[in-house]
């Protein structure tokens, strides 16, 4: 094998930077602390560690795939550039007025999140384009020149341009850029018609503002990273994971940094999708639980479900509507404030509540013995026997059971007259129920029945809770893959090069225009494959065509996938048939006699997925050796049971562990309820199913 083909996956997270090196079929991984001031330092440090572990040199790295939370954090912490928005006269306040509603109905002191740009940083131009893309008021170049002087005087570094109906006609936005670049050399300009060419001004304007806001920062970081790598003797191409689960070039990432938002979690979903493919699983629920949040994603036919809009920087208990909407192709995930560090309290209704407040890593849960006073999820896990106080994080942190007990008594037991164990049980059930509810609602929103799904669990806290979650959701099979602690970085190495181009062009089937469709889809295909071609000059590029359709009068479109032949030779009968098939599958029945409309068109270009080797399934071959026994509380039975403790490293393929049991490793512990048994697979996955 050509050693130049070694690939490096790098995920910069909020606390840790994960680095994974793939040499042949073997993965070498490490975690180093994220270095906020110069994030590239942690990458270089981690890279040297894995190169050393693998015994190969820097020059052997043939490709780097990188995902980062830096873009997300810059938006959350408002650490972006001095940015200005140029918009249509009469619409200066779109990003401030939002949907004109309150995301929390009963809070009289509700504060809405401030827009990224305050009002004085939003300038307007006299111009107007209508919904059909026709110019109603032409844009005068002299007006743009006058704005250019204002922008130059103020010293803005980055300009977002968001004009009404620019998704239908980008002419005016392009003219603004042309004049600005002529008058202010070096100024960075982002156009809403390029960043997010979709109808609905609030989402589009907010997305272009977010892009402009983080562009100088991300461009500078990516430039420095490239330089540092070169000085370390690495001149291979660097690619970025984007929020839609594909990979784009460094240049594209620097131009559209908003597409990097949530790229880490997207990597996790790709990681799970790859396992789903290896095991031939058509329907998978990925469950990623860390210290502060849990993320849930539906994966069908080995492809994570995607969406066109999501929210970042939620300011109010992860509540829908409390963040800012970003409309870009994105892997559709539900994130809730439930992690190992999530804190519990009892409310006025004598109900136990958990999260989203988190103990973080300092002071951490009470059991860390660093001054944490309130009970966290980890404290309940410890009291219930899910964790071994002497072997947490490979024994590097000693856990204090008495501190957990005291915290549970203080936080819950004293208020509800419960003993420590019942309080721990209550806390644990509430957090599991919160996650189960989020999964149920997400499934319903997508017309899915979770009973047909397999769960794939990763992230430090997920294996502790996944078994119980499966019981609650009626999910039979659960896989816990190896390398679950660095899942996102592994996922980066499994992602194809891909780019989705989309545009809002409204069309009713009663007013079907094949010529327009063919032309539009050809343009989108050209745009999408063009991006992918910059990443890989030779690979075969596949295109997926999608029309977002609904009955005229409905508000929610469903994505209808069309074959290339159907898409490029459009026939109204075929469009109607494909829509009705998908609609009936989602909602049970179609609605007769209603016109159907298409609102958004998308083409996703992608290199073919990396060859997936089907996983072998091991025959059951006797019990794994039990290292010790400890008592473990079983929530379904509501009592303590005597459980076996097994070391994951010591399990041979085919060996079986029967619940109640704990399968422990350095990074985490898999908890098997009494209802489940686990079989070790040849690839290191632990395969968990109900005991017959």
């Amino acid at each position, binding site marked *: 094998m050509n050693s130049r083909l070694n690939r490096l996956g790098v995920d910069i997270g909020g606390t840790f930077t994960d680095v994974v090196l793939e040499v042949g079929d073997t993965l070498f991984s490490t975690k180093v602390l994220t270095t906020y001031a110069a994030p590239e330092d942690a990458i270089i440090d981690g890279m040297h560690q894995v190169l050393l572990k693998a015994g190969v040199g820097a020059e052997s790295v043939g490709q780097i795939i990188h995902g980062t939370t830096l873009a997300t954090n810059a938006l959350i912490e408002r650490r972006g550039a001095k940015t*200005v928005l140029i918009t249509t006269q*009469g*619409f*200066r*306040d779109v990003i401030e*007025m939002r*949907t*004109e*509603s*309150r995301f929390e*109905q*009963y*809070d*009289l*002191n*509700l504060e*809405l999140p401030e827009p990224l740009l*305050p009002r*004085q940083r939003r300038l307007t131009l006299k111009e107007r384009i*209508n*919904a059909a893309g026709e110019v109603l008021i032409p844009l005068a170049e002299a007006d743009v020149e006058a704005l250019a002087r204002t*922008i130059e*005087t*103020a*010293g803005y570094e980055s300009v977002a341009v968001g004009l*009404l*109906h620019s998704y239908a006609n980008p002419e005016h936005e392009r003219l603004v850029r042309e004049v600005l670049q002529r008058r202010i050399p070096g100024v960075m300009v982002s156009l809403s018609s390029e960043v997010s060419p979709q*109808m*609905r*001004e609030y989402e589009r304007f907010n997305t272009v503002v977010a892009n402009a806001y983080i562009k100088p920062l991300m461009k500078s970081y990516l430039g420095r990273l490239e330089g540092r790598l070169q000085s370390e003797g690495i001149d291979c191409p660097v690619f970025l994971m984007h929020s839609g689960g594909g990979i784009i070039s460094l240049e594209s990432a620097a131009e559209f940094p908003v597409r990097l938002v949530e790229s880490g979690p997207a990597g996790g979903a790709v990681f799970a999708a790859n396992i789903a493919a290896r095991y031939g699983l058509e329907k998978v629920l990925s469950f990623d639980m860390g210290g502060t949040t849990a993320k849930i994603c539906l994966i069908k036919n080995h492809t994570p479900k995607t969406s066109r809009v999501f929210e970042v920087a939620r300011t109010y208990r992860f509540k829908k509507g409390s963040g800012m909407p970003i409309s870009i192709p994105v892997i559709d995930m539900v994130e809730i404030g439930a992690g190992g560090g999530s804190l519990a309290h009892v*409310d*006025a*209704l004598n*109900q*136990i509540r958990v999260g989203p407040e988190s103990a973080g890593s300092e002071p951490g849960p009470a059991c860390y013995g660093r001054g944490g006073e309130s009970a966290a999820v980890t404290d309940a896990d410890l009291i219930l026997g899910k964790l071994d106080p002497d072997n947490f994080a490979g024994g590097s942190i000693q856990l204090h059971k008495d501190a957990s007990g005291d915290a549970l008594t203080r936080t819950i037991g004293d208020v509800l007259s*419960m*003993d420590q164990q*019942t309080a721990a*049980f*209550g806390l644990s*059930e*509430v957090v599991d*129920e919160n996650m189960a*509810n989020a999964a*149920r*609602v997400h499934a*319903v*929103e997508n017309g899915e029945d979770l009973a047909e799904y397999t769960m794939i669990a990763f992230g430090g806290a997920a294996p502790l809770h996944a078994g119980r979650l499966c019981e*609650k959701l009626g999910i039979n099979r659960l896989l816990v893959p190896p390398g679950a602690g660095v899942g996102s970085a592994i996922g980066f190495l499994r992602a194809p090069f891909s780019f989705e181009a989309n545009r809002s062009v409204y069309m009713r089937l009663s007013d079907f225009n094949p010529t327009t469709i063919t032309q539009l889809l050809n343009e989108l295909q050209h745009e999408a494959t063009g991006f992918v071609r910059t990443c890989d000059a030779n690979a075969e590029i596949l295109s997926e065509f999608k029309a977002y359709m609904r*009955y005229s*009068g*409905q*508000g*929610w479109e469903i994505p209808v996938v069309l074959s290339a032949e159907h898409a490029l030779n459009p026939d109204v009968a075929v469009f109607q048939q494909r829509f009705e098939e998908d609609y009936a599958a989602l*909602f*049970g029945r179609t*609605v007769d*006699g*209603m016109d159907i409309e298409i609102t958004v068109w998308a083409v996703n270009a992608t290199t073919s997925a990396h060859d997936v080797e089907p996983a072998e399934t091991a025959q059951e071959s006797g019990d794994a050796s039990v290292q010790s026994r400890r008592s473990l509380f079983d929530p379904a039975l*509501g009592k303590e049971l005597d459980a076996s403790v097994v070391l994951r490293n010591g399990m041979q393929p085919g060996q079986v562990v029967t619940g109640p049991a704990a399968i422990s490793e350095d990074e985490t512990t898999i908890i098997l309820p009494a209802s489940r048994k686990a079989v070790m697979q040849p690839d290191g996955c632990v395969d968990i199913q109900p005991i017959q």
Partner: protein
Amino acid sequence: MQTMTNVANQVMWNRLISVVEEQAQALVRTAFSTSVREAGDLSAGVYDTSGQMLAQAVTGTPGHVNAMADAVAHFIRRIGQDNILEGDGYITNDPWEGTGHLHDITVVSPSFLDGRFVGFFACTAHIVDIGGRGFGADANSVYEEGLYIPIMKFADKGEVDKTLVNIVRGNVREPDQLIGDIYALATCNEIGHRRLIEMMREFKLSSLDSIATFILDNSRRATIEKIAALPASSAEGELRIDGYSNPVDLRVKLSIHTDHIECDFDGTSGLDKKGINVPLVYTKAYACYALKCAIAPEIPNNAASLEPFRVIAPENSIVNALHPAPVALRHVIGHMIPDTVYNALDKLLPHTVPAEGAGCLCNFQVSVRPRTDEPAPEGTVRSEVLTFNSGGAGARPQFDGLNATAFPSGVMTMPVEATENVGPVLIWRKELRPDSGGAGQYRGGLGQYMEVGVVEGHEFDFQAMFDRVDHPAQGRKGGAAGAATTIEQDDGTPMKGKGKQFVPHGRKVMLSFPGGAGYGSPAKRDKHSVKRDLLRGYISADIARSAYDLTDADIREVNAAIERGEDI
């Protein structure tokens, strides 16, 4: 084992709240009316067999809060206990036994587990058209406002009543849409039912009695604890608003007792001749919503948490309109009830409630048609376009009022780009209205400007549904009033705040929606906030000088910061 049951009950209560949220979500996904799917004007809930509401989804409409809690009992009475069968679905749009006007359709479905009747699901949605004169203020009685569907079976043991469907289809402007919405309502109850049955099997329940007791006891206790902590006294509040042709006075006497609060609307104006009257269920909903926000915001809505808030009003006052009063725009008056209640509550609970705000939503409907004064060009069409918009909210005791944000309603606005895709309408302006927030230590929320026209070759009727034209929001503790609503054509032709009005070819409607009022004396506003408001253009230099005593030097400093693109 008592505590184990307690944990299971905790989980089930959580689950039921999640179930009704799923039920509501399914409705949004499948509904046709813009009012449901874009604006969130809907509700959903689960009930025990006696019709007590156990959980309700938090949606955009406090107006459905009590109405939904009361509705199921009406259904049980009308349908008859012995006539409730598996596979049934019941329907009504009765303003007095449903949610206040003919435009709200309520569907109730019984839930059965292994052949045993265990509870109900109910949901309500605001539909765009129910026939009659169309959605507006101009009717003289409820008979003119559209088709009335008494409480009846929509589906009998799974069999849909085709006669009913035919009658409905024959009486409305958008029959497919309405029938589609009725099916969506039935579908969403079905989704709720499935989740409930799963839960009952998982916890091995054969009835909801024990969990109902747990939910209702805890809610009642928690609500009464909150009420008991208040001073046991009473106070009066009033609010004068525009009405249709004569001003309306809303008056309330609030009496706090140890275990309940009574709101008595004695002294409130009588019925209006036009369709802005309010059935008592809707008055109760908004009075109750206002009190819950101020007193017990974190307690979920159910029969027990709502019961301690009692509302009475004289028959055929504008807030207790009896059949056949016209009620289509009951929201215009209904949305003013929280401000009325807060005017009383402020005397009992200082530093808690906000100053008055815009109150009712600033909605309007545009009926576009080809011009009739001259031959209309080719390609001109007819179209109905409804929009929802908001003025400014009142300032709070420690915060400014929210700009252009609905209160007490919680519905969303529609994107301008989406509206212009629906029909030949052009929105030329939709942005904040500087200087409209009442001055104060905490400033009232800004209203907004809108300019509305239609595409060349069309003319239109403008259906206005506004208040606060003559009676702007009043401040609290020395705060100034918010700006009033204004409405006129772009050539200065005056227009009225309510009713259908013709707008000729080439003209636009110029709207200024009201601001919220201020809280506390403007003299106490901190200098930094005044400068920030000027910097952002929330206030003009004139107001900065006259209302807040900002010096010329300060104003120059702010202007310089704007030029440098700096924040303060």
